[in-house]
């Protein structure tokens, strides 16, 4: 067991489901510590399958997975991996309170009788505070809204204090404020050295907080630093015809005339601007100022977004 390896590696992973579907073919990916890596791809591209392989929920036909130098089962037993699911298969009538769910995150560290220690209860309190749900600790889980439920599962993941955090579509069904809060939390964890892999098809927020991007289309087409990988050409490769492009010519945007443009996109983001092939991000307040700074001789603005 090599304790010095501080990265997550998938090497040539292939997964074939029972009905013959090739979910993943020779997928390879390496994510170092202190990184937030986005898994970007259309529905059905294999993002969830990659997670399931890392969690031991499916067995790859070929290839190997190394989680901080350990094999999957060892890493799970040591509590190195935590998973924040899309939370769709839960029975919300189940008699557990919010704090009970978060406490479950501590179970791997408890004894056989699973009696929580003072430290466990303390960690639960702190995790709930980090997602701002302390006031709902005694509520039954089904009483919460969709966004709140997602935060509870995130709190559970935080309580696990795992080095590797896998999040499966954490922003679906979640309002903008919650999304921003989650992003802040993830950045904080990243700064502490955790490895965070986020699967998302919400492209707008990717450049804002993800250091690296992996493009998924039944394999890993490319991966690397966001600045290098996350561009129009590669997104077109990943999403194919699903992508929509907008180009602004000189005639539309003239930085001398003080006109402002607002783009309303379907992922609740007010505006996405790009400069020189590099996607940037701002809210409505900042856009006019950015527009005026633009040099008309640079490349055109590209606004790429995913369309279902």
């Amino acid at each position: 067991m090599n304790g010095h390896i501080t990265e997550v590696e998938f090497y040539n992973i292939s997964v074939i489901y029972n009905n013959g579907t090739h979910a993943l073919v020779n997928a390879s990916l390496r994510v170092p510590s202190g990184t937030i890596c986005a898994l970007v791809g259309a529905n059905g591209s294999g993002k969830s399958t990659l997670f399931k392989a890392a969690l031991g929920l499916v067995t790859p036909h070929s290839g190997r997975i190394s989680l901080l130098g350990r094999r999957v089962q060892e890493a799970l037993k040591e509590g190195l991996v935590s998973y924040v699911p899309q939370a769709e298969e839960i029975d919300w009538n189940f008699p557990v309170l919010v704090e009970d769910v978060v406490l479950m995150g501590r179970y791997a560290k408890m004894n056989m009788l699973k009696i929580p220690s003072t430290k466990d209860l303390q960690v639960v309190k702190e995790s709930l505070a980090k997602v701002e749900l302390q006031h709902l600790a005694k509520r039954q889980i089904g009483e919460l809204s969709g966004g709140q439920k997602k935060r509870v599962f995130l709190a559970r993941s935080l309580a696990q204090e795992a080095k590797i955090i896998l999040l499966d579509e954490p922003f679906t069904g979640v309002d903008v404020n919650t999304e921003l809060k989650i992003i802040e939390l993830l950045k904080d964890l990243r700064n502490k050295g955790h490895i965070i892999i986020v699967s998302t098809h919400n492209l707008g927020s990717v450049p804002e907080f993800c250091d690296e991007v992996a493009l998924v289309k039944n394999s890993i087409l490319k991966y690397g630093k966001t600045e290098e990988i996350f561009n129009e050409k590669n997104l077109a490769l990943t999403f194919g015809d699903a992508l929509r492009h907008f180009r602004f010519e000189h005639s539309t945007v003239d930085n001398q005339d003080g006109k402002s443009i607002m783009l309303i996109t379907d992922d609740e983001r007010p505006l996405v601007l790009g400069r020189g092939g590099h996607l940037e991000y701002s809210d409505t307040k900042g856009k006019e100022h950015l527009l005026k700074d633009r040099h008309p001789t640079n490349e055109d603005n590209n606004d790429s977004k995913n369309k279902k």
Partner: protein
Amino acid sequence: MIRAILMTGLIGITCAFLSCFITLKGWSLMGDALSHSVVPGVALAYYLKFPFSIGAFLTGLLAALSMSLIKVKSKLKEDAIIGIVFTTFLAIGIFLLSIFPSQIQIQTIVLGNVLSISDMDIQQVLIISSITFCFFLFQWKNLLVFCFDPIFARTVGLNTIFLHVLLLALLSATAVAALKAVGACLVVAMLITPGATAYLLTKQFSKMLFISTTLGFFSSVFGAYFSFFFDGATGGCIVLLQSCFFIIALYYSSHKNKKSQKIILENSNISSESLGPTL
């Protein structure tokens, strides 16, 4: 005696016909519940001196309606509701029978006995079967849509509440009829197994109906016949035969599926180069 056997065959056909709808709707265990819930009706009918079928039908329907009501009003799951309702109804029946002495043999109600079928029973079964078939003749397409996709049924203007109650009523009536032949414990088998067997062999509903009713008829007739040699364990013989047909159908269909799966896998040759990574 031949009449008793033929009557059993008729019950078999009716149950098998209904069983296609029931398995499609996912009401298999509802059938179980109903068949047990009719017992207090039989007991009350005996004490109050009116025909067993009516008593059984009424409590059966009452049970079914209570299940639907509780489902709407509580967070309990369907199977739990079924369990609570049918055990309570059955307990009421047993309770009454234990307090007030009666000539009803609990065993006959629970296990059935073709040897004990009287002419009046045959009459009742004929009436119930005809009414059931009449309803089906006029409503089977609607019932099919309702069973397959109740939400869609509502959007095309079908009165789903009426269909729901109708199906429950038909189920109760058929359960009551089957009670005579196979008893409360095995009615559910006649309402599930033929439909399940047919479902394994075909995915076309009309074919399913045909296969199911044919199997239902043969297993009932031969089962009733064999039960003479088994001291009247009619229900047991009929259901055993049905189970044998089921097992045969299971292995036949799974063999067929394996063959076609192999063909699919051989044809799906995805070359990994076209999806390879570019780093």
